[in-house]
């Protein structure tokens, strides 16, 4: 009886986490894989989370930990399919009729950034993760997260202050790589 209660409480706790963080994780997964796979991987993320339930006490941020699990599962899935991860976030963007024309220019500029920079930006602005959380998800130092985000803002700032051809040069670094 008691065991069933413990089991139920664990499952209930995971369920509460699912409704709390699920939408953000699903959005993140949709950036890495197609929609249908993202739905499956979201469920896999929480099934996997149960397997490592004991670690939940020691993690600094549950949200970041769930993102890490989701990322790991998504990258494994892509590896199995022998497909490289390709960040695609354009289809998730909220467009409005009276949109600032500069926004599209900024989007185009962001798309030209290296994938890891785009991922860092999206984790901050779309998923609202802190520097530390992004660092944990991407397994990179906090300083690198900070410099990537500063670099991106610097480039967007330059784009907004100069002409479009010159902005193309500023954002042209991805082609050089």
């Amino acid at each position: 009886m008691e065991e069933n209660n413990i089991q139920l409480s664990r499952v209930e706790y995971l369920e509460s986490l699912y409704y709390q963080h699920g939408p953000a994780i699903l959005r993140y997964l949709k950036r890495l894989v197609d929609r249908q796979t993202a739905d499956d991987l979201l469920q896999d993320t929480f099934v996997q989370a149960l397997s490592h339930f004991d670690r939940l006490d020691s993690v600094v941020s549950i949200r970041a930990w769930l993102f890490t699990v989701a990322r790991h599962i998504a990258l494994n899935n892509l590896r199995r399919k022998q497909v490289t991860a390709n960040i695609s976030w354009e289809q998730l963007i909220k467009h409005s009729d009276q949109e600032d024309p500069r926004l599209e220019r900024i989007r185009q500029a962001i798309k030209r950034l290296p994938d890891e920079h785009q991922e860092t930006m999206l984790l901050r602005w779309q998923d609202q993760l802190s520097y530390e959380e992004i660092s944990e998800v991407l397994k990179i130092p906090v300083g690198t997260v900070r410099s990537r985000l500063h670099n991106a803002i610097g480039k967007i700032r330059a784009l907004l202050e100069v002409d479009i051809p010159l902005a193309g040069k500023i954002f042209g670094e991805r082609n050089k790589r």
Partner: protein
Amino acid sequence: MKPETIESLLMDQSLEQLPPNVEELLEAYIAEHPQHQKMAKSIRQSAALAKQAVSCETTSELPPFPKERIMNLDKTNRRILFCKWGLSAAACLLIGALIGVSLTQRQDMDRQQQFTNGGIIAVNMQTVPDTRGLETARAFWSAEKYENLFMKNRNASVEKKNQMDIDRAIEKFRKRGLI
């Protein structure tokens, strides 16, 4: 403050990653130094536009929570865990039993060997604790040792005196020509 430091702090602020107390200090500094206000405005505007550019629709279509799957997995995990514990305990018991049996067999074999060798019981010296050092230390500080030493010296002096008496008597007999 250097312009690079201000720029860096402004970027952290636009990314909402600056602690509130630092943010207050930065605001006060910018208000006091109007030359940085243009840069602050530009950074804030860029960050706001970038955030707006990548903002997406909130996902409402969340697939159902895989409760059944998770509960089944939880049960399976528990079973595996209990099996692991059970196997570990069984392995420990088995190892203990094997050690016990092998030791008993060895003792029996030793005993049999002793009887077959003419009933000579060999003393396993290794089983006797080595207390020689301890005994020496005890003996060194014991009163008995000093008593023995005293008695030995006394006996030696008595023996020496007796020997001298005998030597003197022999000498006397020699002088008288009796020997």
